[in-house]
């Protein structure tokens, strides 16, 4: 029965979205949220049913497809509107619909005063639909539809309060940055598709078909494909260099941040790489790239997170950082570890975001943690759950994050694709994570209240619809890790076993000695506690220290605070566009000498190398020649680009005529 009801899982939220979008304005709010929450909850129920159906099957048969409709049928090339359920997607739909339901419920309380209430829920539902479509699809093409769908929905939801221009800009930024990644994604799967088709005559985009025929593709193509797909993943999952949109995306409503930017959408990249594991295991170079990028992201995002003052920005960078861990996981070939972390992260990060939402709600919209403090007494539930989540994310033993992070770090150390460097970055990241999370908790909930008198009076615990989701997620954050307990504890890693059929082509984890495992675990626990302790020292014991530190490491602090000026860099040098190349080149030395050199000198060798290279290039007059060349070539070419449609049409027609005359004559 359930095999043929899979299609309902995504369609239910879609129905909710359509109803709310079309007639939501006329419906009472109670009905609007009932539709939204009800549809996603039903999806969750169905997902659970599907999950139980799945585990009732023997392990090697845990896969079935629900084909609804032949979407594209061109000769032998056929794309079905089909939904694939296997352990991986089962886990994903559970996360998406489960966490999604909780966040929907939370939104009822959070958005209760908003004037575009129905539209919000419509978008939220639409998002859930797109995400479910993404994880359930049985072919890359359909997955791509979901992929684009979540991109669109994130655009709509980030810019939901579009009255403020920054919010609209943030939405646009997310959309555009995602498009850049999508380009890589499209290029990747088309490359795979055509190569496979040309080589073998198998024109298909189905995962199953691809999987069984992947060996026929040359490794070089697989590597290229893998990297291109990963470019897509960096866009969607906010990895270096395309992570810039995510912190800005905090402009949206907080539940949206929780849903999109913590629990679901950003994990799409991880999921996609896990889904394509059969490809990646054949392209170890691509895996290495993933692991390195993931590790760098995990570390750098954590450093930025250290100094952020906006509660949501801290969480945003922590998300980027944690996503980096997931990529370390999948990048070193430990796909199930990555997915495991994805799941636990979904729990505790959603909880963190919702908790921060609760805080913001209580603070009447204030997001700056410097203006908070001492909230623990007034918001007991929020504080408690928030601390649980913090313990989970910092990797305190016993909480969910501990098991997953440890799993990843262990695999990073022992995997042939990983190594000490990656492991080290991971551990450093863990220290930093513990530090900034503790800092966040201390600044927000403890110490002296720093908000103004007026705000202080209004602080109150959030309504039930908001605290109940917090509690649910808190339970999950605390206990969710036990399904993936490493075998060193003497139990079976249930989670890994469950996913094993999907990743059977993955690498075999070398049997490391238990000693090694214990040691590594100890190191990470130590890392967590050192971070916590450090933060406690800085922000609870010696509270003047942070300011002094910031003073004495002014430039470094400024770099961190301004996120390494990456946004500015992108804005100036990438967005500026090709036509302005000349201007950019002529302005290069002034800007770079002032901005980049100072920073580079103090930041370290790496950047100063980069800078030095720039310097040499700029000093070299040859660049001017290049610039002039571009300008003069552009001058010739721009004559063609008159901006007049008719001229283009004339060329089009004459070109077409030329082509046709070959055919006809």
């Amino acid at each position, binding site marked *: 029965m359930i095999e043929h009801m899979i299609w309902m899982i995504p369609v239910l939220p879609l129905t909710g979205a359509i109803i709310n979008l079309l007639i939501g304005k006329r419906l009472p709010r109670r009905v609007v949220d009932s539709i939204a929450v009800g549809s996603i909850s039903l999806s969750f129920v169905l997902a659970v049913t599907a999950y139980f159906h799945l585990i009732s099957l023997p392990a090697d048969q845990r896969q079935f497809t629900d084909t609804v409709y032949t979407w594209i049928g061109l000769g032998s090339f056929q794309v079905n509107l089909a939904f694939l359920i296997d352990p991986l997607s089962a886990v994903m739909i559970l996360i998406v619909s489960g966490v999604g339901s909780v966040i929907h419920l939370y939104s009822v309380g959070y958005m209760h005063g908003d004037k575009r209430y129905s539209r919000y829920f419509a978008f939220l539902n639409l998002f859930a639909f797109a995400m479910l479509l993404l994880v359930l699809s049985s072919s890359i093409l359909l997955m791509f539809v979901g992929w684009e769908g979540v991109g669109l929905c994130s655009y709509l939801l980030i810019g939901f309060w579009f009255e403020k221009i920054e919010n609209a800009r943030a939405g646009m930024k997310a959309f555009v940055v995602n498009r850049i990644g999508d380009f890589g994604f499209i290029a990747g799967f088309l490359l795979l598709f055509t190569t496979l088709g040309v080589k073998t005559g198998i024109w298909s985009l189905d995962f199953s078909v691809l999987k069984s025929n992947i060996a026929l593709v040359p490794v070089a193509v697989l590597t290229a494909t893998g990297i291109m797909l990963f470019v897509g993943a960096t866009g969607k999952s906010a990895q270096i260099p395309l992570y810039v949109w995510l912190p800005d995306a905090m402009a949206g409503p907080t539940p949206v941040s929780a849903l999109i930017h913590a629990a679901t959408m950003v994990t799409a990249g991880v999921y996609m790489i896990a889904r394509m594991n059969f490809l990646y295991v054949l392209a170890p170079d691509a895996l290495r790239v993933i692991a390195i990028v993931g590790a760098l992201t995990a570390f750098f995002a954590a450093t930025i997170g250290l100094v952020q003052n906006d509660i949501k920005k801290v969480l945003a960078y922590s998300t980027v950082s944690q996503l980096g861990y997931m990529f370390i996981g999948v990048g070193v070939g430990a796909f199930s570890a990555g997915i495991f972390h994805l799941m636990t992260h979904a729990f505790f990060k959603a909880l963190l975001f919702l908790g921060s939402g609760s805080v913001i709600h209580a603070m009447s919209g204030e997001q700056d943690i410097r203006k908070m403090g001492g909230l623990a007494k007034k918001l007991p539930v929020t504080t408690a759950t928030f601390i649980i989540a913090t313990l989970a994310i910092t990797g305190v033993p016993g909480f969910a994050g501990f098991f997953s992070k440890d799993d990843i770090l262990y695999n990073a150390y022992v995997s042939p694709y990983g190594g000490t460097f990656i492991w080290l970055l991971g551990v450093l990241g863990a220290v930093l994570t513990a530090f900034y999370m503790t800092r966040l908790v201390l600044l927000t909930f403890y110490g002296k209240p720093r908000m103004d008198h007026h705000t202080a009076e209004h602080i109150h615990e959030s309504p039930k619809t908001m605290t109940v989701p917090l509690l649910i997620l808190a339970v999950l954050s605390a206990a969710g890790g036990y399904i993936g307990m490493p075998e060193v504890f003497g139990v079976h890693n249930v989670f890994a076993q469950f996913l094993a059929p999907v990743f059977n082509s993955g690498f075999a984890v070398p049997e490391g000695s238990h000693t090694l495992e214990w040691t590594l675990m100890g190191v990470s626990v130590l890392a967590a506690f050192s971070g916590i302790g450090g933060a406690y020292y800085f922000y609870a014991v010696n509270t003047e220290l942070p300011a002094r530190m910031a003073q004495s490491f002014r430039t470094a602090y400024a770099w961190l605070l301004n996120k390494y000026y990456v946004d500015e860099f992108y804005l100036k040098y990438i967005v500026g566009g090709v036509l302005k190349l000349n201007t950019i080149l002529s302005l290069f030395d002034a800007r770079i000498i002032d901005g980049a050199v100072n920073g580079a000198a103090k930041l370290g060798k790496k950047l100063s190398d980069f800078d030095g290279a720039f310097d040499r290039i700029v000093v070299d007059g040859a660049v001017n020649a290049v610039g002039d060349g571009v300008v003069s070539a*552009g001058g010739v070419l*721009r004559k063609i*680009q008159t*901006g*007049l*449609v008719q001229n283009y*049409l004339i060329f089009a*027609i004459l070109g077409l005529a030329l082509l046709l005359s070959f055919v006809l004559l």
Partner: protein
Amino acid sequence: MLSPISLQDYLILSGLLFSIGVFGVLTRKNAIAVLMGVELMLNAANINLVAFSKFIDRGIQGQIFALFSIVIAAAEVAVALAIVIAVYKTTRTIDLDKEDSMKG
């Protein structure tokens, strides 16, 4: 005596009409005049559909296609004109030579 009219004649008529439409679309400076050229081209296509329906199609599907084409042309014109008028309202002109914000 005039010889019976064959399919070719209809097709050539339609081709002529189409070419005139192309000419109009390419040379007119006025957006609405361009739209008229497009209408000519659409009509040429419809003549083809109906002519094929008469001479080759065993059923009546060519005519049905022509009907769809006519209906969609109506929608197209409505939207196109709305756009033209919206453009006119902002720029006070619908001269295509002046609508060159895409100019490089």
